[in-house]
């Protein structure tokens, strides 16, 4: 297992101009690493459907690379999206899943069958073009250039250390961040897309 922050640092070195969407408890670290805020987008807002929205974005912007940092709890809520993505084979889509084996945001309860799911195996059999599985940072960092140069859809399962939150939501640190609407507006401006 590795720190999510280190995963993002390893990724950022190979990001180029990719559009990035990060979700889940681990995903919050992305904004500490990203240096291209206008190309970061928040597509969360419904249980498990960030992947669907990122998939739609990739379909709509075939000339841009779209990278999703998903979470395993989120993916399990919408596992059928893997088939939807595989069905359309978006070449520009890279789908990371940061797997901490639990619902970190609700206190760390394990997801169903937490330690025994091979998400990359599921993605491979469902029809993703390329799949990877990593549980150590060195292997991931070494492979990141290759991952980002592959024709998609690419699936990358990464084991990360859970960062469990136990405080009631109202007592948690509330770090200011751009709203979903603002990230959409900023990305459209960046890409010169009329809303």
């Amino acid at each position: 297992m590795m720190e999510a922050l280190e995963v993002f640092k390893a990724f950022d070195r190979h990001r180029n101009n990719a559009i990035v969407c990060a979700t889940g408890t681990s995903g919050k670290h992305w904004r500490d690493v990203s240096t291209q805020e206008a190309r970061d987008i928040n597509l969360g807002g419904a249980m498990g459907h960030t992947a669907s929205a990122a998939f739609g974005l990739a379909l709509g912007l075939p000339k841009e690379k779209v990278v999703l940092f998903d979470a395993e709890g989120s993916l399990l809520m919408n596992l059928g999206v893997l088939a939807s993505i595989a069905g359309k084979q978006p070449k520009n889509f890279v789908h990371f899943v940061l797997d901490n084996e639990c619902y970190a945001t609700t206190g760390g309860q394990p997801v169903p069958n937490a330690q025994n799911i091979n998400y990359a195996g599921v993605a491979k059999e469902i029809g993703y073009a390329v799949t990877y599985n990593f549980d150590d940072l060195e292997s991931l960092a070494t492979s990141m250039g290759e991952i980002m140069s592959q024709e998609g859809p690419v699936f990358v399962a990464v084991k990360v250390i859970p960062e469990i939150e136990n405080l009631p939501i109202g007592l948690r640190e509330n770090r200011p961040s751009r709203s979903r609407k603002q990230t959409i507006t900023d990305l459209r401006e960046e890409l010169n897309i009329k809303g």
Partner: protein
Amino acid sequence: MAEQQALILQPATMIEEFKKNGVTHIITIPDSETNYLYELMLQESWLDVVPVSREGETMGVALGLNVAGKVPVCLIQNTGMMESGDSIRGMALGAGFPLVMVVGYRGWTRRGITPDTAATYTEPFLHAFGLNYYLVEHDEDAPRISTAFEEAKATNKPVVILIGDEYHGFNR
């Protein structure tokens, strides 16, 4: 016979309305009522059909496509719409973008009495979410489809077209 034909909603009419309103993508789970429409859509080079696995996905995919400047439509059945409540809330209403959802009205009978609870709960569901809707039963109702697109654009909200033609034109 001619009179009966006039009461049918032709799938080609739907395609024409989609084209007129600049639709680029149809995100759908095919159902028995829309099979012929599905086949016709696949023949249109200007239209990209995106099959998904569960109706709740359609609103998320639509959001992503909208961000990219495309014009998506969700084509689903009322049963799946009801299963999609959180996606309608979080993706469609929450993000606030123009979205037309074409929803097959399973169980619709025009007589107010139906044995199918899918129909019983359809309009109360739409009212609960504050979604405006237009019933389309035959070709003469087609202008309501354009009305729905115009309203979605003006309000940045989802607008629903209920297809109440389960037993006629959408099947061969």
